[in-house]
């Protein structure tokens, strides 16, 4: 695989996050380069999801700044972040359970719909063509994720592994520049994990999407990531290529514990 890693696209500087007296994150800095797969790993409670939620605008960091493509934001909500081209998936699925797979993924196109309401309601003229164009993109994603058979199924009825794929599909429908994946492999069996890995690599490869991946399963991460950040108790304890990180003393200690 010969992909070209570009310049820094997302730059996280000195982020701290406090909830009352609890320090979830302390002075975290790292960057993400275009087209790379960048992982954030760490044991449970290390602050991985908090970090992702800061980037996604769900939390506002107490200190520090996040710069996306040269634009620094400190008070952003999720929607504004979405408009800038950052999509995400959720650790605990947050799909629209009553809606079909197609509608879920179509909802990811929401920001791209341009024609006015009346035309849409009547399905005439440009609105009809626009709807078809969006639908085509969505069908492409459905093919890509191999969920053709479940198009019309309400998402709530699908097994867990497939719901995770729909979650990914909805994020992909936004055609994001950066895709934040929050534990996409949590709770999956080996086969499902392998499928998900393949999808992540393909997304990165085919669409050129930059990926920020959160995972606590070290094995998976080391195989597919370009660079890895390691967090423990809200602090950064390692940063670099998978091999460097694997041999880092602090990282080993965090994962295996110290002998007393």
């Amino acid at each position, binding site marked *: 695989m010969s992909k070209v890693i570009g310049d820094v696209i997302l730059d996280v500087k000195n982020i701290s996050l406090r909830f009352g007296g609890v320090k979830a994150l302390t002075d975290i800095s790292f960057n993400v380069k275009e087209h790379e797969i960048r992982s954030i790993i760490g044991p449970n409670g290390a602050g991985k999801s908090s970090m992702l939620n800061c980037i996604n605008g*769900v939390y506002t960091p107490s200190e520090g700044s996040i710069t996306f493509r040269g634009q620094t934001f400190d008070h952003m909500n999720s*929607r504004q972040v*979405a408009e800038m081209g950052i999509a995400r998936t959720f650790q605990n699925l947050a799909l*629209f359970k*009553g*809606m079909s797979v197609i509608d879920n993924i*179509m909802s990811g196109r929401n920001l791209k719909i341009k024609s006015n*309401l009346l035309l849409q*309601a009547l399905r005439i003229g440009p609105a009809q063509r626009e709807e078809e164009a969006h639908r085509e993109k969505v069908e492409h994603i459905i093919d890509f994720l191999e969920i053709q058979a479940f198009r019309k199924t309400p998402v709530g009825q699908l097994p867990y592994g497939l719901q995770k794929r729909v979650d990914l599909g909805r994020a992909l429908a936004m055609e994001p520049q950066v895709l934040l994946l929050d534990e996409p492999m949590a709770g999956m069996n080996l086969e499902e994990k392998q499928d998900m890995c393949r999808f992540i690599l393909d997304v990165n490869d085919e669409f050129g999407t930059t990926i920020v991946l959160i995972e606590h399963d070290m094995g998976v991460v080391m195989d597919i990531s370009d660079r890895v950040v390691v967090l423990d108790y809200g602090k950064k304890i390692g940063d670099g290529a998978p091999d460097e990180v694997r041999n880092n003393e602090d990282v080993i200690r965090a994962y295996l514990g110290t002998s007393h």
Partner: protein
Amino acid sequence: MAFFLETLFGGLMAGMLYSLVALGFVLIFKASGVFNFAQGAMVLVAALCMARFAEWIPAWTGLESKLLSNILAFAVSVVFMFLLAWVIERLVLRHLVNQEGVTLLMATLGITYFIDGFGQTLFGSDIYKIDVGMPKDPVFVLDGIFEGGVLVNQEDVVAALIAAVLVAALSLFFQKTGTGRALRAVADDHQAAQSIGIPLNRIWVIVWCVAGITALVAGIIWGSKLGVQFSLTTVALRALPVIILGGLTSVPGAIIGGLIIGVGEKLSEVYLGPLVGGGIEIWFAYMLALVFLLFRPQGLFGEKIIDRV
């Protein structure tokens, strides 16, 4: 037979009115997952606004034309309902994003009392009339088939037509437009909806506006039939069994549910009433709702309740 048909028509028309109110509940629930207790209060305040401005506008401007002043009053009422929606979003809902359904329910309960009081402070608390020129005279139809024909209230027919148009428009809006899809998405999961760039606040304003319009239409029709008075808020209670029957998330369900309850009330009153000494009309709807809760808790058209463990 003619008498049966008359009762049936009467029931259908009454049912249509229940449907209109139920529709307001369904809209807000569908689009924000909030059971909006304030729907009844919104019907009242919309009707009050309409009734009062229809009086005030000719008095202030010396406008002669009744039609014109009704149109103006309607326009003012629409603006009023939009403002109300905007204020509710701004002051209440915006601060409750991602909260539990129960919290939001309690908030709408608060809104109910506020609107009740505020509306009557603003517009007065007497009984007012709305006269939008609905035809009042009953007519006989089908007299070729039955002797003497079937007595139908023209006003009811017009009301039914208006309701039908409203429902068709709303169904198109929900099923066919991107905004409709966004509304359904918001109802399912606030957090996820925001993450894909759906503007939660704007969606809420839109849906409360639409519910406001529905309340206004319901208020005008009820008001012109029964007069505008405080008891209009209790209309909301009549709509509850309709929603249980039709399903909280279904626009067609609200309509069919309303019709079933309307017809059921009238037919049971007329044919079963004498056997038990009458008064069935009052509790029939709730009884039916209870039976539905036992056997089909999601209602006739509601989304099936799926719970993965």
